[in-house]
């Protein structure tokens, strides 16, 4: 009898905490592009709802989606759509990934601010990133080697750039692969011959965003779908959002939340 009581108590000690529902906490992980949106909106949402705690971390879109599949976060941020393989994995595990579109974005092509180039075509950008064009003079720029800055492969920004610009072509050897939008922007700022790409929210006056196919990345050109490297930004949840996660996402989609998104340099979905 004592053994039975001991066994039941032990099981209860293990199982009950695992089943206990966490209250008033939202965990978010994923895309570094979406990270500033999540941070800015979480701060304001927590100010308005002091009883709620939101923890936000990056890691990349792949990490965000993997975390939703593993059930270790409430929200998985991604700057790309979920892949077929990920969707099947999720559904087999009883997870139903729901895509909440929270913002629009452009992937801006960025150069050092002293570079006189003001625009490139998609073909020229592809040729640069595949190594066919190696010097700025080949695109009517200064005689200066091109330093290619790219994103790591787990990044959603990389996936979108790869699809929309490289069309699956192999990148040039010697490209510098960096782990975040911020790292790309900083490296481009400090490297005169550099070319990089980052979410519009990371474009500052210390670097230079250029036209692509004659179109400058802006709210207007993204919303009228003229800018060729545009995308939507997502927060994935398991099923339609519920409870405090729904309250938080509703806040992001409210006019106040969308204003915060625009303050971060991204584009409203409204």
């Amino acid at each position, binding site marked *: 009898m004592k053994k039975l009581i001991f066994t039941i108590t032990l099981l209860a000690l*293990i*199982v009950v*905490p*695992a*089943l206990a529902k966490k209250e008033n906490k939202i965990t978010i992980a994923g895309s570094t592009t979406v990270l500033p949106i999540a941070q800015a909106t979480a701060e304001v949402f927590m100010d308005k709802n002091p009883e709620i705690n939101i923890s936000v971390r990056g*890691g*990349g879109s*792949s*990490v965000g989606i*993997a*975390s939703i599949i*593993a059930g*270790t976060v409430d929200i998985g941020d991604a700057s790309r759509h979920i892949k*077929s*393989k990920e*969707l*099947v994995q*999720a*559904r*087999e*595990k*009883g*997870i*139903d*990934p729901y895509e909440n579109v929270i913002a629009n974005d452009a992937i801006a092509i960025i150069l050092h601010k002293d570079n006189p180039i003001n625009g490139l075509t998609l073909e020229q950008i592809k040729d640069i990133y595949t190594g066919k064009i190696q010097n700025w003079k080949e695109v009517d720029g200064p005689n200066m080697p091109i330093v290619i800055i*790219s*994103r*790591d*492969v787990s990044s959603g920004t*990389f996936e979108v750039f*790869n699809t929309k610009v*490289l069309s*699956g*072509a*192999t*990148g*040039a*050897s010697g*490209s510098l*692969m960096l782990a975040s939008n911020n790292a790309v922007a900083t490296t481009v700022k400090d490297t005169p011959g550099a070319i990089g790409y980052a979410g519009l929210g990371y474009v500052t006056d210390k670097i230079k965003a250029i036209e692509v196919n004659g179109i400058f990345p802006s709210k207007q050109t993204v919303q009228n779908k003229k800018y060729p490297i545009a995308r939507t930004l997502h927060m994935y949840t398991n099923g339609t959002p519920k409870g405090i996660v729904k309250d938080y996402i509703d806040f992001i989609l409210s006019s106040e939340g969308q204003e915060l998104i625009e303050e971060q340099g991204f584009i409203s979905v409204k």
Partner: protein
Amino acid sequence: MKKAFLIVILTIVAFGILNAETKLKMELWNRWTYKMVDGDVEKNELALKRGYFRIEPKFSENIKGRFNVDFFSDEDGLDGAGLKIKYAYLDFNNLLPIKDAKLTVGLMKTYFGTIYDWDYTVIDKDPSDKYKFVSSTDYGFGVFGYFPKGYGTYALAVYNGEGYKKTGGDINKDLNYAANLRFTPVPGVTIGGSYMFKSKYDSQIEDETARGDMVDNPDREEYNLIAGVGKFAYGPVSLLAQYLNKVKSKPNMDDYDDVTTTVMSFMPVFKVNNKFDIVGRYDMYDPNTDEDDDGYNIIIAGFNYHIMRDSKNKPKLFIQTNYEIKQYEHEDSEDESEILIQLRWIFSETINKGK
């Protein structure tokens, strides 16, 4: 077919490592096994039961490869170690005019039952592997794809038919044919099925008593294999159920009775938290349904303790503990019990990123 495949794949992979984004992965299983039969200790060993080194070059967005060398403790091997090539294949995406489908060529996964995505939640092998229905990898080619909106997967493949272990000229030359489907109509409910046709020995041979005449080969063997799979997942609880059926026939032998082998397997898992899983498994194996008391049941209970996971929450370092009982149907056979404790660690890194 095997040698030609292997040479081509190895050459491409070696070239690829130098020139393409390549994922390197290594996994090691250090296991202590303590086996008892009828109260006597039959095995008490500590061994590297399996380790592998994997190279996955990505030649382009549409062409990827996988090359896998397995190594393991082996008393009969050189200096106590064994070595085998487990995977050597190339995936071609977008080559076929079907969305989300890939063509695979080489020493590749066998798309049957759950053997191709078995992740050793318990230490023991996948049922199709354990009960010798199919080999986990084989030389061949096939198409694998995803249904839209995450509704499942499909695969069609043709295999050499001898698995990855046998080499040399004296191997079966009959091809195997496999079809596999998995549907997930709603999240958490997956149903699937596989069919494989295998054969051995030529259907016709030259008659030794008559000049050049071809006659039916009485040794000809044909196998029809079926797997039914059900997976259920809800919150921290999941259950994998599998039914396997194999019918062996000798179509050119009139007095041969077909042999039907069946397996039922159930594997419940309770994920207590991100660190701790409670696992179980129950198998019923019947090697010949026409005979009594020739099978056995297996009961496994244990847990997995995850010490570390990677950024995508995949296991990186964890301990598996299983207690396994084998109960024979025949009353003269003694039950066997085993305690297995295994430390698994996984290392992976991608080089030449974005190349």
